[in-house]
């Protein structure tokens, strides 16, 4: 099929159906924006996991008596505890932080704040800081080892703190994808309907094409290109929407939730990558839907 004819057919088709086409573009755009947002949340979750994965520890806090008496974990309570922790499955390294070291770190952490002056070394526990090689099994093993052991005051799993954040982000992601699924259904139905209407308004042309023996491909291509263009425009709008949302809403929101570094910012490069990806996705989905519609409903 010659390019000139295709261009003419497609542009007249899009103009003739302008309201349907706009509705289809907008629905596709909102759908793809949800998909894009979901992908970006996934990306952020990955970023956060990477940010914290090697930093997250399980802290086994020792009780006050052991903490005060044993500055280097050589005592009868701490040493066996440490070696059994090191032997536990899924455990990477075990480091000992004495009361003094904890106190120094505490002062460093809260430097300039009044709490730093009030604290005494005696009020801070010595800890065995356990890093894990197996994030899930390791934590279980640590708990099993220290359960009921003398000298242990408690276990602090830092991942519990970050877990709340993950739960929130997973929720956002699930909502985004769920919305995307519902909207995708609406978009696909609308695309299908637009193609049917488009085929109906051009039934005379299609009839002539069939009669003179134009190939199926020639007959169908204008409809598919029409749908694909509308889908790609929808994808481009969705991408623009994501970039706008980053600057208008998300950046401020992340800054407000925590100080810099708690949640890594959504990178512009990621947003652009997702946006660029949405264009062919929009085109492809619309094209495939159009093709399926022509096969199922329209004799072309």
């Amino acid at each position: 099929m010659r390019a000139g004819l295709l261009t003419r057919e497609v542009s007249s088709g899009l103009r003739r159906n302008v309201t349907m086409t706009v509705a289809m573009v907008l629905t596709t755009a909102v759908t793809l924006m949800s998909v894009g947002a979901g992908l970006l949340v996934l990306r952020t979750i990955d970023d956060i996991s990477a940010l914290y994965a090697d930093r997250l520890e399980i802290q086994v806090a020792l009780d006050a008596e052991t903490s005060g008496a044993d500055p280097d974990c050589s005592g009868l309570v701490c040493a066996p505890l440490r070696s059994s922790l090191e032997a536990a499955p899924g455990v990477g390294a075990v480091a000992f932080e004495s009361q003094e070291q904890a106190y120094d770190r505490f002062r460093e952490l809260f430097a300039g704040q009044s709490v730093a002056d009030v604290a005494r070394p005696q009020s801070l526990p010595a800890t065995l800081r356990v890093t894990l090689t197996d994030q899930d099994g390791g934590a279980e093993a640590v708990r099993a080892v220290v359960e009921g052991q003398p000298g242990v005051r408690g276990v602090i799993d830092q991942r519990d703190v970050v877990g709340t954040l993950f739960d929130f982000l997973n929720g956002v992601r699930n909502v985004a994808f769920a919305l995307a699924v519902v909207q995708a259904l609406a978009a696909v139905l609308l695309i299908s309907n637009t193609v049917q209407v488009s085929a109906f308004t051009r039934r005379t042309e299609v009839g002539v094409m069939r009669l003179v023996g134009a190939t199926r491909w020639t007959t169908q291509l204008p409809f598919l290109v029409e749908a694909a263009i509308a889908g790609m425009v929808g994808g481009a709008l969705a991408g623009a929407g994501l970039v706008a949302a980053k600057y208008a809403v998300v950046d401020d929101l992340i800054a407000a939730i925590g100080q810099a570094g708690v949640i890594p910012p959504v990178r512009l490069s990621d947003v652009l990558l997702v946006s660029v990806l949405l264009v062919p996705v929009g085109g492809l989905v619309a094209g495939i839907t159009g093709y399926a519609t022509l096969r199922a409903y329209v004799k072309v």
Partner: protein
Amino acid sequence: MIELRDVTKRYPASGRPALDRVSATVDSGEFVFLIGPSGSGKSTLLRLLLREDVPTSGTIRVDGLDVARLPRRKVPKLRQRIGCVFQDFRLLPKRSVAGNVAFALEVLGRKQSEIRVAVPELLEMVGLQGKAERMPHELSGGEQQRVAIARASVNRPPLLVADEPTGNLDPETGREIMRLLERINRGGTTVLMATHDDSIVDAMRRRVIELADGTVLRDEARAVYGAGR
């Protein structure tokens, strides 16, 4: 050119078949009228020839192609060998006379240079030279049918199928269209024309295949419309 052997077409909704073991052969270069009352199976037969539909049983050959068993991707090949003209012309209202003919060539993927040569030739063949830039609504019915015939000839098809081509025309204009079809037939094109127009059939004295209730009632050379009744 056309070979029908025991062609039966049954539509699911009706008990009596639309065509019942119809057999006929049309040689290359013949001019054949297909007559019969509404519901006799004329339209069904034309649809089967064009592979708009497939017969329930029997074989159809058109210009060497086994129509009923033709794979779908080869259907365009079949239709390129059959020119088609209808009672309602089926022109594109927003394209000029030349534009309508050119459109058919365009969708077949012909080059612009080829189209520029072919369109005036086709319009001259049907006697519409000088009206290339007119719009269909500015033309008389007879002229519109000539455009349709020019369009049906873009592939230089060996077979022209006409379904009531004079049905919307007054008698004099109808006779003009018949003269055009005759001329195309003299050029070697086989013409199969379905019609109700007894005066035309009687005047032409060509072969007549009459269908009734889906069967061939008669098949006579140089016949008239009302013979046998």
